[in-house]
Structures are given as C-alpha cells and as structure tokens.
C-alpha cells in the first residue's frame, strides 16, 4: 500500500478523501457507484410503469404520472446511468492501459464528476417542483416548451438545466480524455496499439466532443425559450391561435434535427465502451488475440465518422424530401456493415481458444447474442417502408433496448471483470453465474414480447386486449431482471469483506498493463515509467529516464508542471465551459523537477455545488419568486468565487517525461486541451448558426429579412463591432510579441487595450439592443425584443451567446492583465497565446455573425 505517498490525500477510509480526490482511480470508483445509483433510480421508475402496463389503462400512475415516469426513465438511463457507468471504467482504466499516471487535467476530471453528480441531483429535485419533464426522452418540440407543460413547468426547466450541466461535464471529460490519450501514452504505444477498451473510449470521446456540443446548442436554446422567452421551438407566438402562414414553421423540425444529430452518435457513444469491454473479455477468456483486430479498429473508426450522417433515419416520416431519405437510408445500411464485421471478429476470436465460462465472459457472450438480435431488428428499421409502420411503436422500443441494454450487459461484465482489480478481492463466481442466468432470462422475458406486441404505440398506457399477454409477460420479465441486481449487489458488497484477496492478475491470458500492477494499483499507478519500446511492457527506473531525456529539446515535459485551472464567469450556462477555457489562463508554473504531483482539491466540489444552486435558481426565475432569484444570485456569486479560487490554487499535474504523442508531439497539453475545447465550441456555434439557417429556410430565406426585421436594424453597429474585435485580436498578438521580448510595459498596454476594445464591443452592443428593444414603428409597435418573432429570437440569442463568450474572455483578460502587471509572462508568452486562441476564435465567430445577422 502506498498510504505514505498520498501527498495530502486522506486515506480511502476517510470521507473527506472522496470530496478532495482528483485521482483518476478514485473518481472512477465514484462514477461507478453514482451511476449504479442512477440505474436504481431509473429502474424503479421503469418498474412503476411496467406495473401500470400489466393491464391496459392508467389506474396506477395517472396519465401525467405515466408520462413523467416514461420520460425520466429514458433520460436517467441514457444520460445518468449508462455513459457515466462506462466512464467509471474509462476513468479507472484508460490511464492504466496507456501507461499514464493520471488524466491530463486531474482537477477538471474531478470537476466533471461533481458536475455530473449535481446534475443528477438537480434532475431528482425536478420531481419536487410540481411535475418533472413529461415529454419523452427525445423531448420533441413544441411539447417541450412551457406553453404545453401543465402548471408552472419549473420541473421541466430544471431537467433542461440539469442536462446542460451534464453536458458541461461531458465536454470537460472529452477534452480531458483526448488530451490524455494524445499526450500521455507509454513509449512505443502507437494509437493503434493501445488496448481495445481504451481505443473504444478514444472514439467515444471523439463522438462526444462533437455530438454533445450540438446537444448543448439545442438545450441552451430550449432553456432560453423557457427562461428568456425566445421562440425558437414555438410555432406561433401568442400560443392560442394558429395562423395558416405560421410564424415559425421550422420550429418542430429544428428540434428533431438538432436532437437526432446528437442522438444518433449518442447511441454509439453508449455502445462503444461496451464493445471495448466485450472485446477485452473475449480476448482474456478465450485466450486468443482479437481476430482481425486491425479491421475491428477500422470498423470502429468508420462507425464513429458515419454516426454523424445517419440522424435523419429517425425522421423518415417528418416530410423530409425523398433524395435526403434515400441518402440517409444508404448511410444507415452502410453503418450496419462495420458492426457485422465486429460481430464476426468476436465470434472467430473464440475459435481454437480456451474458453472459460467465468461470470464476465458469460455477460460478454450474452451481450453479443443480444446485440445480434438488436442489430438484425435495426436493419428492419433501415428499410424505410417498414420503418414507416414501425415508427413510434414497440418495435423501436424493443430494438433499442436489445442494443442499448446489450451494451449495459457488457458493462456489467466489465464490472465483474475489473472488480478484483479495483477492490483487490474476488467475488463469488457461482453467485455471479446465477445472476447472469436470472438476468438473461429476465431480459428476454422483458424485451422479446415487445417484438410480438409491436403494434402497441410507444409511450401509451392503453393497448388492445389481444396484446395483454405480451405486456404482462414483459412486466414479469422486468421484475425478474430487477431482482437479478439484488444478487449482484449482494455478491459485490459482501465480497468487499469476505472476498478472497487477489494478486495483480486473477485472469489467465489477460495482457493489458492494468493487470501488471497490484490490485488495487498504487496512487501513482506504476513502479516506474512504463514503456513498450521493446515491444513488451517494461518499467524504466528514474536513472534510465534521466539519461534518455537529457538533451532532448522536447524535454520541456520534464519537470514542467501545469496547472489546470478554472476561472470565474457570471455563472450562466457557460460556467463550466469557461472553466475549460480558462485552462489557458494560468499554465506552466515553472516548478523544480522534484515537485510532486497534486492529488487533492476541494474546488471542483465547490464549483459544482455553486453551479447547482445557480441552476436551481434559474429554473424558477421566470416566476419572479424571491426564493429562486436569491438562489440564482447566491449561486452565481458562489460559482464566480469558487472558479476564482480554483484558478488561484497551485495544482501540479506534470507532463510525462517520456511519452508517445503522435500526432500532437509539438502541441503542449494545455494548448491541445484548448484546441480540443475550441473544436467543440465550433460545433456549438455551428449548431446555433445552423439553427438560424434552418428556421430561416423554413420561413423563406428572402422573405425573412423583409417580414421580420425592422428597418432600424442597420449595419453600422455591427461593422463598428467588427472593427473593435479585429483590433483587439491584433492587440493580443502584440501582447504576445511584447511578452516574448520581455517588455512588461508593452504586454500590459496591449492587454489593457484588448480589454478596453472588448468592453467597447459590449457597450456598443448594449446600446444597439436598447435601441431595438424600444423602437415604435408601424410594423413593430412594441419594440423588437427577444419574443417579438423568430428573427429577433435568433438574433438576440446567437449574438448573445457570442457576447457571453466575449464577457468570459474579458474576465480572463482582466485577470491576466493584473498578473502581467505583477511581472508574469515575461519571456514565456504561452499563457497569452492560449488566451489568444480563445479570443481569436470569438473574433472568427463574429466574422460570420456580422454578415449573417447584419447584412444578409
């Protein structure tokens, strides 16, 4: 045990450790436990509505109760259970498998976890705000807007905000994992050489980075419709009459596009980690290397890419045109083929093996079989003529449970596989196998009858008499499935004490690096620096490392510690993004080579707690209630303060001395993190601009300008702001040049100039908005404000999001100006460069907003 090395981290038996820890293994465990809690939460809801469905009619939950249970079950399982469960393993194992001692930004990792937990708590709180969200996990518009939500609808708003918070956690996590995997691989491990589970996580986070950014756009727009009164998802403004020439004919379809653009990649985001676990378990328990590994990997890459061009197969009936349906039918069938290959690759891996039917293998094999059934029924859906009839029925429900819960099955296998590694104890194999039996039986009893009862529309509690038998069977199956978890929880819980101690590797033929170290691994993971340079795992001692790094210019890595920091914002929806942004702000504390890595920080917890309070407050501000207003205010201040505290806390996460870094060798980790984050921000803004283009096309591109925009909306303010931003961008690069030349005065002057121009930008915008809010013309007698029409909504929200980015940039800029005044950055302009990346990006966005919203 390495208790004495824990660098200020209390022992695991102490509660405070779990609030402080930034270590990837601790956080992995936290994720696993929290996700299992949400599994129970979502599971109980499912059992409730399965009970309801045992006979036709809503005699148990009532109609709104039923809709709430169905909707939150879906949201909880998809968002709060399955991906976080997979990321529990990813947190624990990816650094171990690739030979790193932690993730690239340990504090951000802790922040991801706490944001996730608090987002789930917010979701829970929503049940107590009247009614929670009841519009299905797909949240179709306009049922998702307050006009159609019974009562005050605050619970629904909370759910939207909880999802935003969750998305923030995911985005930080994606940036963190990508930076880790591209900067911290053991020597000799090319990307294609990393163990298959880690590879699957790599592709998962790539999809997450882009897909969740689109979801974030959808959710921010929806939150704005809820809280600020924009009208993106409302078809007509006053909500009581429906004119034939709609105000916003694109409203409903806009949500469908945004949601499914995220939603389809999401189903692979859910499934890929499971696929990775299956492949690991198959290799270990068959004693064979993965057959066709190269093609397996190529298939995964293809699926990850293609997952972004199949989304409209969820929209075949929405009236989209035939050519686009044809294209999306082709891509959908195309994407099923790589899966074919992966399935066969797994099957042939068993050939000539020494297959041992341990608990984890049973779950993996079971998952494969369920996936085969789910995949075949997916092909039915890919045939459009069939899909037309399956859409909205239990066929879809049965299909996606077979595939998604097959993924969950594999993950439970993963739990049994890595449990000995995480706890150092072995569980009772017999009980494990019994659980599998009960689980598999329950699963099929629950979901197979749904194929037979496929004529039932989904999300209804009334169904034809003739189908009762299948629904009753499914309900029984649901309880059997639920009961199997009691066995699992009992087994795993009791084994913590009574389980036999295991050595480093309890499974014959396991090969990846996590099995080469003790169970559980030491805080710093490895006994030396891991290397695969000779083709086999070795641990280099300090001396060898010192020898090897000497004279290498790239040895900047050695001894450089970087701080992953956060900065404060106004506590809006962008809070957590800002934290990632602000990693730029305080990089590269030069510390002596002997400095130890930090493992503890209380700030991630505090930031998330304050963020939670803010969001809870925001959920009710539209009622004008003092309670909610004060929550939002207190939370906002708390978020700002704790982000500032986090930024100022010294925290050391050293770069590895020797590592494989293709293709980002020359991109220092802070810079890579920043670029990755910006890539997701591109998609966020892209989705906003895409939404604008979509609703405008739906309305009539050229009529838009004429019908909806007042003549007072002129080009000049936009042009002036373009000049201001361009000039400020110029000054940031000048600040860099000055810092490089060690001119303190120049640096400070340029930063002050940047700040002043940014403020000018905001003031100019404020004046322009004020003017437009208060115009009195024939066409717009009551001014042109957020709720006036769809054009005003898109204008204020899109440029408002940009304005929020400017504001965050200004806060960072102010902080850096103070630091520069105190002599920072001289001779090392990296921090300014990273801030500049963000600032120039904000500039670039404006270069597109200006013509789109002012000229065209």
């Amino acid at each position: 045990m390495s208790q004495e090395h824990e660098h200020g981290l209390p022992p695991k038996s102490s509660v405070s450790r779990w609030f402080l820890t930034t270590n990837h293994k601790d956080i992995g465990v936290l994720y696993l436990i929290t996700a299992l809690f949400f599994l129970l939460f979502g599971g109980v809801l499912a059992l409730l509505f399965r009970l309801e469905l045992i006979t036709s009619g809503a005699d148990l939950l009532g109609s709104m109760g039923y809709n709430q249970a169905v909707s939150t079950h879906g949201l909880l399982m998809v968002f709060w259970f399955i991906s976080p469960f997979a990321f529990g393993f990813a947190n624990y194992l990816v650094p171990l498998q690739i030979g790193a001692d932690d993730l690239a930004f340990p504090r951000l990792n802790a922040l991801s976890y706490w944001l996730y937990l608090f987002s789930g708590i917010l979701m829970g709180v929503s049940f107590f705000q009247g009614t929670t969200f009841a519009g299905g996990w797909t949240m179709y518009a306009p049922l998702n807007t307050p006009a159609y939500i019974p009562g005050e609808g605050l619970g629904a708003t909370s759910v939207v905000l909880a999802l935003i918070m969750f998305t923030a956690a995911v985005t930080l996590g994606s940036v963190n994992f990508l930076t880790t995997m591209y900067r911290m691989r053991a020597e000799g491990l090319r990307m294609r050489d990393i163990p298959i589970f880690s590879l699957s996580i790599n592709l998962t986070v790539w999809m997450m980075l882009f897909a969740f950014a689109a979801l974030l756009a959808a959710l921010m727009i929806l939150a704005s419709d809820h809280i600020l009164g924009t009208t993106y998802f409302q078809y007509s403004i006053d909500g009581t009459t429906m004119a034939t020439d709609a105000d916003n004919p694109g409203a409903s379809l806009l949500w469908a596009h945004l949601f499914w653009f995220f939603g389809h990649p999401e189903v692979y985001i859910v499934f890929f980690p499971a696929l990775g676990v299956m492949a690991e378990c198959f290799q270990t328990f068959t004693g064979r290397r993965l057959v066709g590994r190269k093609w397996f990997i190529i298939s995964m890459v293809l699926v990850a890419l293609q997952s972004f061009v199949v989304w409209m197969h969820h929209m075949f009936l929405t009236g989209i045109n035939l050519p686009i349906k044809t294209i999306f039918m082709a891509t959908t069938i195309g994407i099923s083929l790589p899966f074919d290959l992966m399935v066969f690759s797994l099957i042939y891996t068993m050939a000539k093996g020494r297959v041992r039917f341990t608990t984890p293998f049973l779950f993996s094999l079971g998952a494969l079989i369920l996936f085969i059934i789910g995949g075949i029924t997916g092909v039915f859906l890919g045939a459009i003529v069939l899909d037309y009839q399956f859409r909205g029925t239990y066929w879809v429900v049965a299909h996606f449970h077979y595939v998604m819960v097959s993924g969950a099955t594999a993950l439970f296998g993963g739990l049994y596989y890595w449990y000995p590694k995480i706890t150092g104890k072995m569980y009772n194999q017999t009980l494990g196998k019994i659980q599998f039996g009960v689980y598999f039986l329950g699963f099929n009893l629950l979901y197979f009858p749904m194929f037979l009862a496929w004529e039932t529309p989904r999300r209804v509690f009334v169904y034809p008499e003739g189908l009762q038998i299948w629904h009753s069977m499914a309900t029984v199956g649901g309880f059997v499935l639920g009961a199997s978890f009691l066995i699992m929880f009992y087994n795993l819980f009791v084994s913590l004490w009574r389980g036999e101690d295991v050595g480093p590797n309890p499974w014959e033929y396991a090969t990846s690096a996590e099995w080469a170290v003790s169970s559980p691994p030491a805080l710093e993971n490895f006994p030396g620096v891991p290397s695969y340079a000779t083709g086999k795992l070795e641990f280099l001692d300090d001396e060898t490392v010192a020898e090897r790094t000497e004279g290498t210019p790239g040895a900047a890595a050695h001894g450089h510690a970087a701080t992953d920091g956060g900065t404060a914002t106004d506590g809006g929806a962008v809070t957590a993004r800002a934290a990632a942004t602000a990693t730029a702000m305080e990089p590269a504390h030069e510390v002596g080579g002997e400095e130890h890595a930090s493992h503890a920080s209380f700030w991630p917890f505090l930031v998330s707690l304050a963020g939670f309070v803010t969001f809870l407050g925001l959920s009710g501000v539209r009622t004008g209630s003092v309670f909610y207003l004060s929550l939002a205010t207190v939370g906002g201040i708390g978020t700002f303060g704790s982000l500032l505290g986090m930024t100022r806390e010294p925290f050391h996460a050293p770069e590895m001395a020797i590592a494989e870094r293709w293709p980002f060798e020359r991109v220092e980790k802070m810079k890579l993190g920043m670029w990755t984050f910006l890539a997701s921000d591109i998609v966020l803004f892209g989705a906003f601009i895409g939404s604008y283009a979509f609703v405008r096309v739906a309305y009539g591109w050229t009529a838009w300008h004429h019908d909806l925009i007042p003549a007072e909306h002129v080009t000049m303010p936009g042009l002036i702001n373009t000049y201001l931003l361009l000039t400020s961008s110029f000054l940031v690069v000048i600040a860099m040049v000055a810092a490089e030349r060690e001119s303190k005065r120049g640096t400070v002057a340029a930063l002050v100039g940047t700040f002043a121009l940014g403020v000018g930008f905001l003031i100019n915008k404020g004046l322009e908005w004020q003017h437009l809010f208060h115009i009195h013309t024939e066409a717009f007698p009551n001014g042109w404000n957020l709720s006036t029409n769809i054009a005003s909504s898109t204008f204020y929200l899109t440029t408002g999001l940009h304005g929020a980015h400017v504001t965050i940039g200004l806060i960072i800029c102010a902080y850096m100006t103070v630091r520069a005044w105190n002599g920072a950055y001289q001779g090392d302009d990296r921090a300014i460069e990273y801030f500049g990346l963000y600032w120039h990006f904000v500039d670039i966005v404006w270069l597109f907003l200006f013509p789109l919203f002012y000229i065209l």
Partner: protein
Amino acid sequence: MAGIMVTLTAVVFPLHGGDVRAPSAVFNQIFEVFLLLGTAVGVVVVAYTMYHALKYRDDGSEEDPYADKVERPEMGEMPTGGTGGRKVFYSFSISAIIVVSLIAWTYSQLLYIEQGPDPAQEEALEIDVEGYRFGWDFIYPNGHTTNTLRVPQDRVVRLRVTSTDVFHNFGIPELRVKTDAVPGQHTSAWFTANETGTYTAKCYELCGSGHSLMTTEVIVMPQDEYENWYAETEGPTETETAANETGGGDHQIAPATVGGAPA
C-alpha cells in the same frame, strides 16, 4: 360511346382503387420476407456463436489442445490481432450481401409508396387532417369537417396531415398508413381500403396527458353509401363533439375550426 361511359363512371365512381396495390400489401410482403430472413440469419449466427463458445470451451486439461496452431497472449505484450481473419471476411461478405440486396429490393417499393399509384389513373380522394390535443379534424374537399374519418371502399385516399399545436403522428395500423403531424409543416400519405368496416386511427407521437387516448374511428363504407353520406354534408359543419375527453390540467389549446374549403 363505351369510352365515354367508362370515363363517366370513372368520374362518378372511381372504382380503380380496388385494383391498386394497397400499402398494407406492400408492407406485409416486405415484412414477411424480412422476418423470414431475419429469423434465419439470427438463428444461424447465434447458433454459430454458441457452437464456437462450446466447442472451444476449456475442459480443464493441462495440455493446450491448440498449442501448435495458435499462440496464447502473454502478460504485457503489445496488443496485436489474432490469426484467422480471413473467415471474418467471408462471413462478413455474405451478411453484407444479404443486407444490401434486401434493402435495395425494398427501395423500389419505397418509390411506389412515396409516389402513390399513377395519379392519372386513380382519382384520389383528398382529405386534410389536422391533429390537435387530443383529437383529429378531417376536412373534406367541400369543407366538411368531422372527427371521424369516413372513406369509400376501394378508392385511393390521400391525406394531407398537419398539426395545430404540438408534434403528433397520425396512423391507421390496420391499413398501414402513418405520417407525422408537424405544426407548420404538411406531410402526406395515402392508402386504400378494400374491406368495409371500422378501423382505429391512433396518435404515435407523445403529445401530452391525453396521448394514450388520442384515437378515433375510421369508417370504410361501400362507395354508394359514402356518396350518399358525402352528398348530405355540403359545406363546413360543426365539429362533432367526440374524442376530446381528456385534458387534465393541461393548458388547453382550442381546436382550430377551419372555415373555407381548401381547393
């Protein structure tokens, strides 16, 4: 003379709907083929999987029976692929051919469903459908509006569907017709019913508290009966009071009463 007669009957009684291949026939045929092949492929692949799992199970013997054929992975090795990849390709190719040809075959049927039977031949009855929470308005060419869909037997019926509030989906399962009802958009679908009788239309997209009960009757009548009924309905009428039983505490949107006849 005969030609004129035929044309005349066609105008009064467009009987051809009976000869048209109904969407339900198209669906049933494709579904059957898919079920058959899908089950076959499923059974074969799952059996194949189980065969491998059982055949190569570790019987606990000391000796590795395949020691001379394959190498076992070792702790700490760099991950690589195992041998036997060629078989993966063969199996993959077979399944890919099945999948791709199946879908290609359905595509021609899709074009038929999309375009409908030749319009010159089949004079379709066009009905506008408006979904609202929680019911349906059916608007006939003469402007008559009802909550029950009445259509003649053996005639192509074309629906133009939209919604006046939230997203719904209009479907008549027995007749295999379904389409989304999207506010601000119009979608269309067609069907023909060969048997008289009463069917049920349902909503297939969650739309609020009354969603589960958002059903309505579809009555397929013999052509002459239909003509009689239709002749009685001149002009727009009051919306029948039906369907709309549920409402809960929902913010209720008044169903639009449509005035003039469209087209």
